Each structure stands twice: as structure tokens, then as C-alpha cells.
């Protein structure tokens, strides 16, 4: 009986350990000195170190699917039926995944049709560029692209809401209710499919040119906003904004966040209540790190990972995050008799991967894409099952697209679409980028 909760939560991934086992690892107690003990103690993995702590979650299968399988699509209706913070969390997870898929599509269309245009590109790419630039926060470019779209283009029904939005002050969010997606009214626990892709055909400008089927990036944003609306309906309050803070779109800019309660933290990549506040504040600049380092684990890690340049050094960051994992293991196991249990180890891995991804965001804001990229890729290397957070993985795919590196993005999106078919519209834009990049690069002959 004692093992039941752990068995449910850990499942087959790590096996159930009831007491000491060969899988348990001894942790050097000295490691706990590295990260401030009060921050470690406040982290959700330590707060949830015992079965009794997380029984309210482990008794609910939807939470197991959310944390151990990262199966957002299946979880939304289940937690939606329960309502409250859990439902809001599930919708927020979906919102972030769709946001990052929209950003992926935005980067892909700008890189393909904006940075390496071909004379044969369809006229309608002006609409794609409008949306792409808009989501990237490049409103002047978005307006310029919008002005190039001729009347009667097949994209017109999808373009109209954007033209209207860009004609004004472009306050976030745009009203996308006019998109021909057939989205139902926002309801907690709902999972709208949107209109099936492709959404229109774009004719290429060559003699006898074929039609390029395409899906609209705005559809992904509409779904993201729909789920955000459902999350607010389920649990009004600032916690949602704290949860969304790290992975908002560039066009959204900085938004105030709120403290995260346990339903917003449990099994997630933010570790303490103030991590969301820190990320919300981060877009204000580097002082956020110093301002929050005593309350936010992420800010503390960013502070402790500064290299000689005064910004995050990826190797230092990896070392600090590994220290954090050890410290969490030590503090967690201290609450259960000194041996690290399977679920504690798993929680530590989630913290490890989440901290890497969080620090990558900080490095990006500091303007160091190289260090940020190293951390993103390091996090991706550790993303398996419970640590394979869809929004984080899609954020890496979006980042890759912005770098004109489609291969990994294709694989990530392919895997996510398998579980969340509604992400499929992003595939069209990414395919366009992959085709263009693949045809312009020699030097990679097929290898045996």
C-alpha cells in the first residue's frame, strides 16, 4: 500500500522503490551547501518528497499523465472536469505548446520567404510574413508585408483580423475570432480541433506553377489564446501569468506575473513560487537576476552561473544545475530516511532539465544565443518521458527554425504532432524552410 502512490506516479519509467534498492544513489551531503538551503527546501520536489505530500496529485490519473507522460491533450478534458487550478494548469500547458508552435511557424516563414525569397514564391506569402513578423514582435515589417497582399488572395479571410489589428495600436492580443477556424466558445475542459490543414493553396509564380498547400500560423495562435482563456476561466488570478512568463511570444512583451502555488509547480519546470515572477520581470533586463536571486531558484542559478563576461556561462550553469539536482536529492531523501527514492530521483531530473531550459531563457535575454543554445540543447539531451516537456521542446524547435536549422525541429514537431495533431499547421511552414535550406546546401553527401 505504501508503494501505491509511487507506483502510480513513477510507473514503468523508473520502477517502484519501496525503501533502499540498487537504483537508489547515495548523495554527498556536502552538495546541499551549494544552493541556498531555504530555496532548495521551498522547491516543489522537496515539498513533495514524501508520498503523503503528493497524494492529492498521485491519486488523480490525469496528473500522472501530465507529469510522467506529458500528455497534455489527454489531460485537459480530465483535469478540466475537476476544475480549479489543475484545469487551469492543463490549459496553460496547452497554451504554451500552441504558442511555441506558432512561434516555430513564424520563424520558419520569415526565414524562408523573408530572408531567402525566391521570385517564384506565391503572392500570398505576404500574409504569412505579416503573421510571422507580427508574432516575432516586428510590427513595422508586419505592416509592410500586409500592404503587399493583393485583394482576393486566398489568404484574405485569414489576413483580415491581422490587417485590422495592425491598423491600430496593436494591443495584445489580436482579435482572431474572425479566423475561419470554427472555434467554439471557450469552455474549461474543451479541446477544439480548429479547421483541418491545409487551410489554403498558394500558387507559385512560375509558368504552369503548382499550388503549395499551406496552413495558417494564426490558427496556432488562436488555439493558444483559446486555451489561455480557458485557463483564466478555470482559475482567475495572476498565477497563470507567472506560469506563462517564460514562453510568451516576443510580440507580447513583458507581462506582470504572479506567485505560483503547488498546482502550478508540481511536476513542472518552475521550482519555487517566485520563479514565475522572476521570469516575468526578466524581460526588463539583467537586474532581474540580482533582484530575485534570494527568492527564485532560477535567478539564483543565473547569478551563480555568471562567467567572466558577467553573463551566463553554459558550462558553469550546467555544473550549478547538477549541484541543484544533488541538493534536491539530499533534501528530499532526508525526509524519507536518507535513501533517494525513485520518485525523488525523477523529480530531481525534472528540476535539472527545467532549470537548464530556464537558464537558457536568461542567457537569451542577456543576448548570448551561443550560451543559451548550449543550455537549450543540453536540456533537450535530457528530455525523456517525464522531462520531455512539450512547450520546452517546441521552444527549441522554434529556436532552431530561427537559426535555419530545420532537422531537429522537424523531428521534435513530428513527435509532438503524433500526440497533439492540432499542432499540424506548424508543419507546413517548417517543411517550407526545410525544403529551402536542403536545396541550398551542398557538402553533406549520403553516408553509409
Amino acid at each position, binding site marked *: 500500500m505504501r508503494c501505491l502512490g509511487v507506483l502510480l506516479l513513477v510507473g514503468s519509467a523508473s520502477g517502484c522503490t519501496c525503501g533502499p534498492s540498487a537504483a537508489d544513489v547515495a548523495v554527498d551531503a556536502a552538495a546541499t551547501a551549494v544552493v541556498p538551503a531555504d530555496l532548495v527546501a521551498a522547491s516543489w520536489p522537496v515539498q513533495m518528497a514524501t508520498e503523503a505530500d503528493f497524494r492529492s496529485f498521485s491519486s488523480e490519473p490525469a496528473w500522472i499523465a501530465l507529469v510522467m507522460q506529458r500528455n497534455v491533450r489527454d489531460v485537459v478534458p480530465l483535469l478540466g472536469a475537476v476544475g480549479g487550478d489543475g484545469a487551469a494548469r492543463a490549459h496553460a500547458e496547452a497554451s504554451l505548446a500552441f504558442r511555441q508552435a506558432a512561434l516555430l511557424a513564424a520563424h520558419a516563414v520569415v526565414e524562408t520567404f523573408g530572408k531567402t525569397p525566391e521570385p517564384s514564391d506565391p503572392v500570398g506569402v505576404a500574409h504569412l510574413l505579416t503573421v510571422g513578423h507580427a508574432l516575432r514582435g516586428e510590427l513595422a515589417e508586419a505592416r509592410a508585408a500586409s500592404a503587399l497582399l493583393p485583394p482576393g488572395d486566398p489568404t484574405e479571410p485569414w489576413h483580415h483580423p491581422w490587417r485590422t489589428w495592425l491598423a491600430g495600436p496593436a494591443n495584445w492580443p489580436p482579435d482572431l475570432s474572425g479566423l475561419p477556424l470554427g472555434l467554439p466558445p471557450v469552455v474549461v475542459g474543451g479541446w477544439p480541433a480548429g479547421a483541418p490543414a491545409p487551410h489554403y493553396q498558394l500558387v507559385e509564380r512560375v509558368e504552369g506553377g503548382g499550388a503549395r498547400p499551406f496552413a495558417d500560423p494564426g490558427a496556432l495562435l488562436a488555439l493558444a489564446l483559446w486555451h489561455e482563456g480557458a485557463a483564466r476561466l478555470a482559475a482567475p488570478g495572476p498565477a497563470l501569468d507567472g506560469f506563462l512568463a517564460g514562453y510568451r511570444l516576443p510580440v507580447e512583451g513583458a507581462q506582470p506575473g504572479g506567485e505560483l502555488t503547488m498546482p502550478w509547480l508540481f511536476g513542472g519546470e518552475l521550482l519555487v513560487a517566485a520563479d514565475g515572477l522572476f521570469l516575468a520581470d526578466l524581460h526588463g533586463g539583467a537586474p532581474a537576476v540580482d533582484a530575485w536571486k534570494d527568492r527564485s531558484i532560477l535567478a539564483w542559478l543565473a547569478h551563480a552561473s555568471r562567467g567572466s563576461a558577467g553573463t551566463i556561462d553554459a558550462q558553469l550553469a550546467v555544473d550549478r544545475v547538477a549541484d541543484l539536482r544533488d541538493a534536491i536529492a539530499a533534501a528530499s531523501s532526508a525526509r524519507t530516511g536518507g535513501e533517494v527514492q525513485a520518485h525523488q530521483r525523477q523529480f530531481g531530473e525534472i528540476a535539472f532539465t527545467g532549470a537548464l531550459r530556464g537558464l537558457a531563457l536568461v542567457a537569451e535575454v542577456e543576448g548570448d544565443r551561443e550560451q543559451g543554445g548550449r543550455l537549450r540543447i543540453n536540456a533537450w539531451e535530457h528530455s525523456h518521458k517525464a522531462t520531455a516537456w512539450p512547450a520546452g521542446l517546441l521552444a527549441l524547435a522554434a529556436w532552431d527554425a530561427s537559426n535555419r536549422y530545420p532537422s531537429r525541429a522537424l523531428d521534435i514537431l513530428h513527435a509532438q504532432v503524433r500526440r497533439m495533431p492540432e499542432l499540424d499547421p506548424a508543419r507546413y511552414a517548417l517543411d517550407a524552410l526545410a*525544403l529551402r535550406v536542403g536545396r541550398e546546401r551542398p557538402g553533406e553527401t549520403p553516408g553509409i
Partner: protein
Amino acid sequence: MAAHPFRTLAAAALAIGAMGSLGISYYEESLPSTLNPLFARTMVDHRSLELVFDRLYYRSAITNELKSRLVATHESLSEGKQLKITLREGVKWHDGKDLGPDDVCFTVSAMLDPKTPSTVAKEYREAILKCESLPKENAAIITFSKAFHNPRERIAFAVMPKHAFANTTITPDLDFSSRPIGTGPMKGSKGRREVKFTAFPNGHHNAAIGELVQAEGGDPFVQVRTLLNAGVQGVISVSPQLRPEVQANDDVALKSYGLRSWWFIALNTVNGPLKDKRIRQALDAALDRNALRELTIGVDPNDANPPCEFVSGPFVQSSPYYNRAVKVRPAADLATVKSLMASAGATEQHGRWILNGNPITLRIGMNAPLDVEAKDLLNQIGNQLQSAGFDRQVFRVSSDDWTLKAVTGQFGKDYEALVGKWSFGVVEDVNPMFQTRAADGRGALNIFNFANKEVDALLQRFDAARTDTEAQDAYHDLHALLAADLPYLFLWRLDTKSAWRNEVRNNTISPYFYFTEFDGWKL
């Protein structure tokens, strides 16, 4: 034949002992077939060469930014049809001589020399017309066949030393192929059982790891045990079945390697019973891919992102070239086998197919190193085909034979089927595998010299495509045609994961080329 794993292990351990604290060793799939960049065919070749040579331009493994360690500045001339590159000062070859623009132009001339039998050079031949050396400026002007918007991409070739060759006709059998002279971070020397790389401090490289020993991987289990016991520091390709064990170990980390590989069984469409398409289709129907995958690679039914995914054509499923309308065939369909074989004129006697009075016997070969990734695949394929009524003999083909004979189309009378895999980076050009082989280099990787006019026409359509969509449509049609005509039985995509001990730090792995960022690796 692969070295016995314990002998390899002993050799590697011995090498480590001699290397001291700044050396590491690792297991490769096999030894490289060459260390001459013009003749690289295997992924082992490409990976090894990245340590020894510099390409004029390369892409960052992190940001994908186009960079160069050899070029200081570049300038576009003649409205984009020429590129002037000025070389960085102080770059030395591994024999101590200075790198100069003559070396760049020599490499171009060697690639353009029609007597240099290099498939690697083929795509550069299509883009580059000539190279003019400007020694006083330490610069070279490269002229292209047309203006490219990305000319630096078009010269991402490895630079070779002019002084190491008598003329621009370069052949693979020169000593240079085993004792190359490059400007890369490591000086390489290929022996019979290992390749040793030694750091060569240079103006543009300063590898932190002094020595690197590459040994041929044998039994995958032994490889992993040796890694976990610190007998080696890295394994390039870890069998999927062993990944959970590696993942559970705190001293070792699994690393993803950006390589898209798909596995196949090439069928002999020129000689023997498989000339008949119906018999090829029967073989396709006889395969139980689900069972093959489970028996040789292992499948976690709960894994939402499995490392192995079936394919129905010559692309991975995530590729924009993959035709999703062509469905995979995961299970065997013996009724279809019977129907197809009957229509081909075969009769079944005591569970064996008889054609023209003789049992159908299939000689099946497999590129031996693949056994590391999919243990016992060859036997399992043979067993399945035998239980469907086809006699079989199975053979492991050595890496050298695979490289020198199989992919060059010389096994047409030796085998009915060959099991292999192809690996790709960002570029997914499958024309060399399916185009009719020709003296001009077309069809250079056509294993059984398959020839089909419809296929050739589609490949021509791909090459002549004016737009990305036309290229995509051509390959979608190709996928459908190949899935029906079956010069290959398409199996699956299998991702590649390496494992490195944690004492090897900052070990960024570049997509496709692997060791591009080796300078940053530390102990």
C-alpha cells in the same frame, strides 16, 4: 571481418594507458575506409575527417551560424559569380608547412579534375568553375557557374595540401588516405586496428584533449560495459536496447547526434528471381517489421517518441519529402505472399517456393557494423523469409567490402539482397541511390544497378525543379513509385545516440560531422 570485441577492448585499454591523463578513446562503428576527404563514403569517414581537416566554411553546432577557421574575410565579386576569400595568417599543415591560397585552388582543381574519381567532388563540380590564387594577398578568387545567394555554402569543402600530391589527379589508394596531412585540430594516423589522433596546436586550433584513439566497436554489450567501467570514454552509436542502462548510470550521458538514418534491404532487380517485381512484393509482404523491430532493436510500447519508426520510402517520416499517403507495412501478410508468388509462376512444395523447377534461394548480406545497432537483424530477416518459403543464406559483409563493392554496384552476382542504412544531414538527396548508374557519376550509390526510366525521369524532375514545391512533388512521386517497384524494402528510421563519460566535458556534437567543435571538448 570485425575485430573481436575483447581484443579491441584490450587494444583500447592499452592505448589509454599509454596516453596519460589528456587522452581519451572511443568506439566507432568501424574504422574509417579512408582519411582522404575526397573519398569519404561512410559516416565514420566523415566524422574522422572532421578531426583532421578544416572545411573552408562550416556551421556552428549550436546556432547554425556559417563560420570559417581558415577564411579571415570574404568579398563578393562579379555580381555574385565570384567570391574572393582572404585566408587567415599563421595556419599550418600538420607537417609544419604554411597553408596558402595555392592549397585552396589545388583542392578545387583536384575536385574539377575528371580523373579524380570522387563522388564528394560531384556537387562542387556543378557549382564551381575555377579558382585563382593570389599569393601576395594570401587570397583566392573562386568563380561559380552562376550567382548564388549563399556562395560561401558552396565552398564548404575540406582543404587539402598541394605539396602532398604530385598533381591534381587524386586517387583513393595513395598513402595520404591513411596518413593524411590536414589543418584540423588533430593529426591523424590510421592503423590496422585503430586510428590515433594527436592534438596539433595551430593558429586556429588548440584542442584541449591531447590524444584520441578510435577503436572499432564490436559487440554492443561489450562496448557499453567497457564504457561504464571507464575502459573507454565514448561510444559513437549505442544500441537502443542498451540505452536505458546507459541512461541510468550517473557517470555517463547519452548524447543525441543529428543524423537522419533509414534502414533498407536492397533487392537485386537485375539478376536472379528478384528481377520479377511480384517476387519483390512478396518479400515485402513476408516481412513482419513489428517482430523484426522488437527482436533486434527493442520497443517500449509506452514510448511516445520511439527511436525506431517504420518508413515506407527513402525518407524519414519527419521529412517534407516523405509521402504520407504511402503507408508502412508493419505486419506480414502471408496470403498476399502466396497470391503474388502464384502470379509469378512459383509453386509451393513442402513450404518452399519453387520457380522454374528450383527452390528460390536468397543470398542475403548485411553491412557488418549494423549488427551493433540492431543485434541479430540479419538472422531474423533470414528466418522470416525462410518461414515464408524462401531458402536463404546469410552473410556479414565487412565494412571495406560494403564500401568498395556493395555501394559501387559490384555485388550483382553475389547477392539477392543487401541490408544497409543511409544517413543524411540537412540535405536529403537520394538520387545517387536510385538513378541509373552512368559514367558521369550519376547513380554512384546504386547498390544493385537498379534501372527504371520512370524513376530516372522523376529524379531528373527533382534536379530540374524550379521551385521547392516542384522538388517536393517529384520526391513524393518517387516515394510512391519506389514503394511499388521495390528496389528496396524500406524498414525504419533509427536515431543515433552516442554515450560519453561525464569526465569528457563540453562535448558538443555537431549534426552530421560530429567533431566540428572538438576544440572545445575538455577533460
